[in-house]
């Protein structure tokens, strides 16, 4: 199956490590031009260099503080200009979990919610003519009770609603909007690696809770994100694709 990604222009936020990085790697492998960002120039430069090694398309990037509206919007404009347009946008960056103070609510609002909304509003005008795809990264913590009541869970849930409504509003311009909700994902430098080291029992119980009896990998999430964002899924819009190896138990009618 041809995903039709060759020469497509892709913008991904928070893409130098973790799931975001695997998504960037896969788009690059498929021949797309990829623009990335993170907070520090060192990590951006390192990631650009590494991804470029195996990429056919152009790999570019610049540091950007997602919380800073101006810095973020100028990153989008700068990347779109350098690549000559944008076909796919993956707002991936997240402030992550945590429930230490009210500050966590602001962090998740500014990074997860506004980090998606501002990016979407900046790319939409560039997609109106030729169409495009936006794939948001959510979480199974938004659709089932997980750990504790915390802003990450609640605010990621708001993105699922937001993506559905965007898909209705912009379908006429052939802009597809979907979201992907990964369950627990295990990789080095990730939260589940820390849990595996610090609390092996809980890690093993969580593994067994999955229908497939193991943790997911970032590559398995990236596969779904890239597919949903590609022309291969041209008839899919407004869905929230749960990618969790059967971790959540609800029936999705």
């Amino acid at each position: 199956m041809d995903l039709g990604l060759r020469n497509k222009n892709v913008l991904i936020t928070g893409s130098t490590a973790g799931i975001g990085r695997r998504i960037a790697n896969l788009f690059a492998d498929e021949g797309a031009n990829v623009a990335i960002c993170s907070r520090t120039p060192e990590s951006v430069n390192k990631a650009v260099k590494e991804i470029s090694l195996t990429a056919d398309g152009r790999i570019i990037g610049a540091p950007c503080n997602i919380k800073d509206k101006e810095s973020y919007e100028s990153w989008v404009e700068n990347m779109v200009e350098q690549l000559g347009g944008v076909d796919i946008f993956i707002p991936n960056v997240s402030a992550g979990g945590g429930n230490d103070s009210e500050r966590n609510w602001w962090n998740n609002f500014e990074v997860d919610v506004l980090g998606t909304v501002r990016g979407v509003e900046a790319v939409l005008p560039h997609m109106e003519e030729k169409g495009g795809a936006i794939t948001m990264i959510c979480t199974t913590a938004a659709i089932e009770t997980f750990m504790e009541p915390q802003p990450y869970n609640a605010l990621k849930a708001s993105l699922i609603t937001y993506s559905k409504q965007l898909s209705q509003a912009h379908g006429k311009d052939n802009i597809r909007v979907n979201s992907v909700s990964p369950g627990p994902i295990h990789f080095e430098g990730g939260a589940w690696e820390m849990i595996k080291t610090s609390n092996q029992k809980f890690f093993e119980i969580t593994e067994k809770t999955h229908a497939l009896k193991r943790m997911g990998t970032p590559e398995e999430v990236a596969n779904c994100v890239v597919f949903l964002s590609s022309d291969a899924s041209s008839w899919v819009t407004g869905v929230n694709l749960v990618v969790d190896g059967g971790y959540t138990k609800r029936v999705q009618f």
Partner: protein
Amino acid sequence: MKIKRNQKIERTSKKQGPNGTPVKAAPKPKMGTQIIPKERYTSSDYMHQEWDKLWTKVWLLACREEDLPEPGDHYVTEIGVESILLVRQKDMSIRAFYNVCQHRGNKLVHSFEQPQEAAQSFKCKYHDWEYGLDGGFVDIPDLETFPQGAPDCSGLASLPCDTWGSFVWFSLNPDVEPLKDYLGIIPEHLNPYHFERMVLTKTLTVEWDCNWKASVDAFNESYHVQGIHPQLLYYLDDKDIQIDCYEKHNRYLIAFSVLSPRVIAPGEIPAPIKVVMKGAGMDPAAYEGSVYDIRKDVQKFKRENGPEQGKDYSELNDDQLTDDYHYMIFPNITMNVHADDMMMFRQRPHPEDPNKMFFDYYMYELPDNEFDQEEHIRPKHKTYKYGDVSLGLVINQDAYNLPHVQKGMNSAGYKGLWIGDQELRVRHFHKTLEDYLEK
């Protein structure tokens, strides 16, 4: 676990003013690489040698000065077969006695590790023999029925007793060197923490199924963090540790609020480091820096905000505001020393069985203000059997493992301890022990 990152802990190179804790690394003693015979942990004969040549020769920690605020206040502690009575005198000095009536050998005061309020005198419950606060006979009922008169000892048998660092010390050795000489570098190193400002918030004793030295050893090295306490890899650097051995005592300086080089920073601040930040008054959710910079930032924050919080860190260097300055006072005191608290373990031998010991746990904390210190109520001491009480995750992990170590030591398939550089303090402790036993 493999080392995944190169990490060099940045340490302060200067002590904090003239009274600060010395920070320079001590010269590494040459102590060889010999196997340490396992019989030290399992043999009754060795246990008896320890009694004759170690426990009855050294200074031992009893209680706190604040446990005995008024004349007549007294406290009973135990070491091996001995029960020791500590009494605040009318002149406010503290004296130590064998806690035994000179008549028929009854234990004079029946209490343990619990401060007892002002007595006018001590009366034996068996035949009412009565002793003054200074240990002298006050009354021997029906003295005329003893044709030989009163015992010629004039009262309770007295022991050397002195104080340092808010603690009361005694020795079973009448000829023991002065406490100051015995403690050596310890007062200079630990006075800056002002233990006298801290209050006791937890005290208990647990009987463990291991030799007392197995416990001392476990707290004298951090090589076991990867095996026994993997969660601490997200809290401290278990590899780049400054180990300093002094004459009898030793220490290591271990950086807290950092990640072990065996792990990679997760996207979020590890929970135990968040606890430190919150303790200092920082909001982890508002922290914008890298996880790798938290140690330095907590130091800075505490330095700037300590005075406002009523915390006097003036004699502590920046590292001491986050790190564990971990001391072993020979032979049996382990001190996990931090700016705001001190977790202390006293390891006591079982009187008859080399395979058992008593683990005394004490938590001292800096109160938020003077009012809290004055109003503080000392928690009641309790004695537990192994497994009946939680000492917190970290100590529980050690406690769970130690009986297995002791069992293994008794195996014909085991010769003794094979000690590496990360366990230098274990070797140093054994060297000091040898020196005592060869005397």
